[in-house]
């Protein structure tokens, strides 16, 4: 029962959205993702807590753009992030900045493996499984855990 419940958390029956961050491919269940959008016209918010890039207008909604690298403890990217994955949380829209967007994966449960023990510590906390796709390892991320990281950094 618990295994089933756990699978269903991470499992989008519809598949996963993949993106690259700090050299790793990771995936979020499509059901958790609102949309993917360009990070443009970001307004910097003076004295904002770390982990926040700024705010932007997405069709009349205010989106808080999150510096995913900083939240997970990776060094800043060489160039400004341009893409973000939009996730709604408590009625607000957040944009997780990523380095690059990948394809949408359809989940094949049999190919899923647990997260390897030697995975980077920063990923280990939020990854609930690993999946092979082409020649890449895709880390399946639990959105809730990712947001735990946001909250601990931002302090809301």
């Amino acid at each position, binding site marked *: 029962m618990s295994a089933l419940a756990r699978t269903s958390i991470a499992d989008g029956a519809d598949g996963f959205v993949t993106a690259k961050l700090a050299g790793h491919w990771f995936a979020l269940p499509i059901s958790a993702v609102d949309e993917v959008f360009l990070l443009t016209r970001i307004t910097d918010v*003076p*004295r904002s807590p770390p982990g926040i890039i700024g705010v932007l*207008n997405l069709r009349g909604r*205010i989106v*808080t753009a999150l510096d995913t690298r900083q939240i997970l403890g990776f060094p800043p990217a060489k160039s400004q992030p341009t893409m973000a994955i939009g996730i709604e949380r408590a009625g607000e829209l957040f944009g997780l900045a990523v380095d690059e967007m990948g394809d949408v994966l359809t989940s094949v449960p049999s190919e899923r493996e647990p997260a390897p023990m030697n995975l980077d510590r920063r990923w280990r906390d939020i990854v609930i499984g690993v999946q092979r796709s082409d020649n890449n390892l895709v880390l399946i991320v639990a959105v809730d855990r990712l947001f735990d990281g946001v909250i601990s950094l931002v302090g809301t």
Partner: protein
Amino acid sequence: MDGMDDLLSEFITDTQETLEQLDIRLVELENEADGTALLNELFRMMHTIKGTCGFLGLPRMAGLAHAAESLMDRLRNGDPVTHDAIDAMLQVADRLKMILGHIETNAGKEPEGSDDTVIAALNEAGGEGGEGSAAPAAADGEAQVEPAEAAAEAAPAEPAKPAPAPAGKTSAPPPGMSMKPANDSPKPATKAEEKTESSEGTGDRSIRVSVETLEHLMTVVSELVLTRNELTEIMRNNENSNHKLALQRLSTVTGELQQAVMSTRMQPIGNAWRKLPRIVRDVSSSLGKQIELEMSGANTELDRQVLESIKDPLVHMVRNAADHGLEMPDDRVRAGKSEKGKISLNAYHEGGQILVEIADDGRGLDVERIKTKAIERGIATQEDADRMTNEQIFSFIFEPGFSTAATVTSVSGRGVGMDVVQSNVERIGGSIDVQSQQGEGSIFTLKIPLTLAILRALIVGVDNEDFAIPQTSVDELLKVEPGGAHSIQLIKEAPVLRSRDRLLPVVDLRTLLQLPSSVDENGVPRVADESTEGFVMVMRARGMRFGMLVDRVLRTEEIVVKPMPAALRGLENFSGSTILGDGRVIMIVDPNGVRTAASSPSEATMQQVAKQAEDVEVAANKELLLMFRANTPNRKALPISLITRLEDINLADADHSDGQWHIQYNSELIPLVWFGDPPAPGANQRKPLLVMSDAGRSMGLLVDEIVDIVEDSVQVQIPSEQPGILGSAIIGGGAAEVIDVSYFLGLASAHWFDPQHKPLMPGADKILLVDDSIFFRNLVAPVVRSAGYDPVVCASGAEALDKLEGGMMPAVIVTDVDMPEMDGFAFAKAVKRIDRLRSVPLLALTGMITDDAIGRARDAGFDDYISKLDRNGLLQSLRDFTNMSEEIAA
């Protein structure tokens, strides 16, 4: 069960409204000579509640309503409306509210308990009317009511006392059955009728819409507005006129839609006032005060969300006014007021805001007590408190846990409240001002926005960032530039701005927000200074005025306020965000936050700036001084205000007669005086002459050399024994001797034959001069003497009081305001306490003339307020007041 739930929740909402009305009507009834219409209405209210409760199976409420209905019926049939009857009815209202609350939270179940005492009180109240014992009267009432009104509901109207439980059972069908009648819904219809009859302002046809629906509609419309703005921005650079026409239409329709949706959220402020008559009545009867509550502007509309947020603050403030503000009837009579205290509420629109005034004609705020309390609680030091204006002192009542009520009454005085009131009001972007006059009452003014959703804002820029600032909090906008009308000055590295003779601490938005340009390339903070160009917005928050410096002011714009994203809510500098026409998001600056942040890391910093600003103001008490040399190489100083003209004369033109030198000046001979030895008579030598004139007389002071004119304040540090010299002071960065003008005036007039000169008559008006500064004493005294008065000079308030208590009777008392130990205000109060002196005019003499100071002076009993350097003003005032006292004497 859904049908039942709907029915029940509708009943709860309706009944809550009815009960609120009930309170108001009852209080009205008490003050109404002919209450027939009101009694009919009250009867109907009770009747409706009774009917519905019977229907829903709520026997306790039905029983109460029934007994109340009976009482109303007896009253409308001629029984007198007694205080007890109203009390009993109010008890019913409370009990019904209590039961209703329980029903709401407990799925439609009435609480256990008995209402016998309340019902008995109702029956007795009616019985006192002289109709004999209570029970028969009640029975009569029922007998009349039931057949006439509602035969179907007769069941609950069984014997009043034990009635409720059985009545409920017999009359109300089991819940399951009640669904049917619900579908037939005979009752909502009656209810609707009742409602329209009893509510005044609302239209005939209305429907209930849930708040969520309206909120959602509002959000969607806001987004539409933003999209429209965005489109307009895009089209601005597009020549296609077909699109333009369509866009224009879209724009108009959007605007109308926005207005319409906004209007659905508007409610008259009277809705928030409903509870007040009842509260005032409760306070007045529990404290034994007589209070009249006056309300005007109840139809002023504002956003329901705003209305919700000010409901509790209003109740609190009215309760405060009733409890603390108004005195007991005896005290009022003693103070020469009518026995009945008055609280008035007034609401009106002004400049896109709603102003709500809560005024009472009670004792007013006690400045001294608030001061003492603030010092006790360590909020301010004695020194700080002494230099604060009344307005600043009043603002202490908004400190948490601050209560000056001497006794804790059942009503208030527990020290919770005004801070909560303030934070509630500020949360919605409003503010509170207090005005108070001891003995005459207080006025609290709430300024609140019409709506929280849309705001008129100034869009300003710093570096490349834009920000929105609520326009309502900006008092004034000043351009600052070097050499311009206004420029930033630095006081110990804190930027300040002088505006209308007041110094304002300036908060540089760049520094506050730590924008990249707030530090230079070496990481050293940049501080705004004289060379800064930009705009300063003069703002007011929590009783403090300050300026906020920005680079650019772009335009004003109606912005749709979006709440701050959760992750950013900790930022106290911002209250929200908004989307501009070009699609950019910008932050809305929160003036209260800026004030708080500006005073961090500690309030002390801001206080210090304010204090420094005041110090400068004292120093601003500067005057122009003429620096010259005469006889000795030391620089000498004389206030230019005393000098009529600077002349260059040839000593050969001077005449000598009767041991006095004269010189021709403006076709008259004026006496000459000098320092040290007399100049060589007849020497062909040119010398500067300082001509001083007063009351038609002039004299000339010969000096050797004019050195300079400087602006500085004069504080004589080392008194001098030398005649003609008051002492030494540091002026313009160097030591200088300050001239004793009175000495030279005396010197000149002693030998001076002048028909105009009035020798001091024995009966000359005595003018009491009080000033701690030897310089000013010596400056003012000669002026006063030369005008024909007899000045009596004192160096302190205490010395002057000694003289006054010793029997001295001056024609006018002139006192300095800023003195150590006893200041001018305290002195004035002490003088006014002496009966004999009550009619003696009191003039305040000071370097600072501000509205605050004038207000304080008036409070202290001063008749006039004159600048220290305004010699003519002083003389004019002396003339006015001495004439006046002569007239009175005559």
